């Protein structure tokens, strides 16, 4: 059946269409524009579910766009990692879109609503495209669309700070895409192909002849994707962009956009260059060093922030460091921990940013010193916040613990036990900046200790609670996701 086969393509094209209908639709009926977005994201989510099921049962899906076979046309390949990412992206985006219905009118000007859903759908689509494409130039185009969409998500709020943050993000991200494109140019020059599988085959043959060129290509791609994924010294755009965006946007940016670049980076390293080159070029040690610095300094910087969203933003820098550390360790456990942390961190950070947005919605408080008594005024939100914060610290039974355990196992496997000390220190630092907020909200109430229900609409509470449940699920039953990802890890580390 033709429609059944072309599902990966429909996944992309349908939400692009909806993205461009959205502003026109918003002119006609503004109050219904969120529901169009929800419809589109739901279709993407169901589509991803079916694709993931097909991958899980029948193996990797190959699809040739417009029936042009691989060396010439664009090929879409959905393997286990892509399927997991598709589910994560569309599922989280669905919850965030539900959250946006009521949260947005308080945070962005009214006339921008239609455009907000345009950039949201564009970002989601291009992220999904980036994960499933097997053509490296198509990948570059998707990177650019994601970048412009992500800048739009920041800019949509208007106002001085978010405009400035947008410009800084746009400048640095364009610098990054320039580097990526140059790296792709080198790859094309050496191999004469744009399809990732063909590049890998050619590169394996000519690898010995051009050691310098391959080294240059890897550094270009590392810098380019590192800027976009906010690897430590290249993260300077991140705090402003995350903290000045509206809360649903910060959740998408931190939980999903940053992760997709890391997944693409891992895919390019492992599928194009292969693990051996990654090991031999010492790129591994560079990333390890940067990740270690990110874990330490990200936590330190987060500790001194007074604005809640800025604190969460700097904490993202540290958490991105965990993912990079796991993947640069290059062992089975390290890779598994990296992939698991991509999922867990998406749940945690989306939950935290959405809770921050809910707190702003009810009380208009944004500073971390204003949380006293909130545990009684907003019990559900603060419970979810507490769950995610515990997971960030790495307390057992919560998702963050499993990744910390995996990273510790990975560093033992790699023969670098020093990283365990780093992980423990980082856990303590996380505790030092999350526990004061929780302590304040539950134990320092001066007058009002009567327990009341949150005055936040249900469409905002339910996504927060689902995310918190996700964090607990990842902590209690990590076996399912782990075994799903293990096949990918084994394929990468061949």
């Amino acid at each position, binding site marked *: 059946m033709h429609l059944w086969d072309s599902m990966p393509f429909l996944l992309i094209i349908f939400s692009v269409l909806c993205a461009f209908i959205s502003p026109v639709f918003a002119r006609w009926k503004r109050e219904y524009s969120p529901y169009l977005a929800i419809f589109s994201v739901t279709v993407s989510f169901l589509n991803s579910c079916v694709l993931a099921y097909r991958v899980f049962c029948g193996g990797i899906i190959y699809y040739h766009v417009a029936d042009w076979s691989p060396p010439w046309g664009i090929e879409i390949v959905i393997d286990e990692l892509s399927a997991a990412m598709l589910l994560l992206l569309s599922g989280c985006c669905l919850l965030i879109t539900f959250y946006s219905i009521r949260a947005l009118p308080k945070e962005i000007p009214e006339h921008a609503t239609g455009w907000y859903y345009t950039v949201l759908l564009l970002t989601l689509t291009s992220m999904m495209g980036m994960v499933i494409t097997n053509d490296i130039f198509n990948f570059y*185009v998707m990177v650019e669309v994601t970048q412009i969409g992500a800048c739009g998500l920041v800019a949509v709020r208007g106002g001085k700070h978010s405009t400035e943050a947008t410009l800084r993000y*746009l400048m640095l991200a364009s610098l990054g895409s320039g580097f990526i494109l140059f790296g792709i140019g080198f790859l*094309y*020059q050496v191999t004469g192909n744009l399809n990732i599988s063909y590049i890998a085959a050619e590169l394996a043959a000519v690898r010995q002849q051009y050691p310098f060129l391959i080294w240059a290509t890897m550094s270009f791609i590392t810098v380019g994707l590192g800027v976009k994924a906010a690897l430590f010294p290249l993260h300077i755009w991140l705090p402003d962009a995350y903290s000045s965006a509206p809360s649903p946007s910060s959740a998408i940016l931190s939980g999903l956009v940053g992760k997709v670049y890391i997944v693409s980076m891992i895919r390019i390293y492992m599928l194009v260059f292969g693990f051996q080159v990654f090991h031999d070029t010492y790129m591994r040690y560079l990333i390890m060093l940067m990740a270690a610095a990110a874990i330490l300094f990200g936590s330190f910087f987060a500790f001194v922030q007074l604005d809640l969203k800025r604190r969460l933003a700097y904490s993202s820098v540290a958490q991105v460091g965990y993912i990079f550390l796991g993947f640069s360790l290059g062992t089975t456990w390290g890779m598994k921990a990296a992939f698991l942390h991509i999922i867990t961190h998406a749940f945690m950070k989306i939950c935290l940013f959405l809770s921050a947005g809910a707190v702003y919605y009810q009380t208009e408080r944004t500073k971390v010193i204003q949380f006293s008594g909130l545990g009684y005024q907003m019990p559900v939100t603060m419970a979810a916040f507490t769950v995610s914060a515990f997971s960030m610290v790495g307390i057992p039974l919560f998702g963050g613990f499993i990744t910390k355990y995996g990273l510790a196992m990975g560093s033992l496997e790699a023969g670098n036990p020093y990283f365990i000390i780093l992980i423990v220190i980082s856990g303590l630092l996380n505790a030092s900046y999350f526990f004061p907020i929780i302590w304040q909200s539950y134990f320092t109430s001066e007058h009002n200790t009567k327990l009341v229900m949150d005055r936040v609409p249900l469409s905002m509470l339910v996504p927060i609670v689902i995310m918190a449940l996700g964090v607990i699920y990842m902590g209690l039953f990590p076996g399912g996701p782990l075994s799903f990802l293990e096949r990918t890890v084994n394929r990468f580390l061949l």
Partner: protein
Amino acid sequence: MNAAIISTNYPYIVAIILFCLGCLCILTQHNLIKKVIGINIMQTGIFLFFIAVGNIKGGIAPIYDPSLPGDILYINPLPSGLMLTGIVVSFSVTAFALVTIVKLYHYYGTIYAPDIMRMR
């Protein structure tokens, strides 16, 4: 590296120089418009690199003409085609950046980055 290799491959060197100039421009210029110009210079360098990759010495434009002799060389059209996409991307990024700068000018009355930092 000897002089002959450098002289035959001079487009690559020009491309690298343009790329570096553009990066320098983005990172060191204080005027925001000049930063955008830096992005454009950088991307022009990359476009030149791709076009140079696709070029063949003595080749002609890749349009099939039966009246030409059979052993004639055509240049590789794929990098040029890719760069059309690249130009569109570069155009949209530039447009977005310029719009943002106009908004910043409305808010702050200047496009000089240190002044904006001071006024925050």
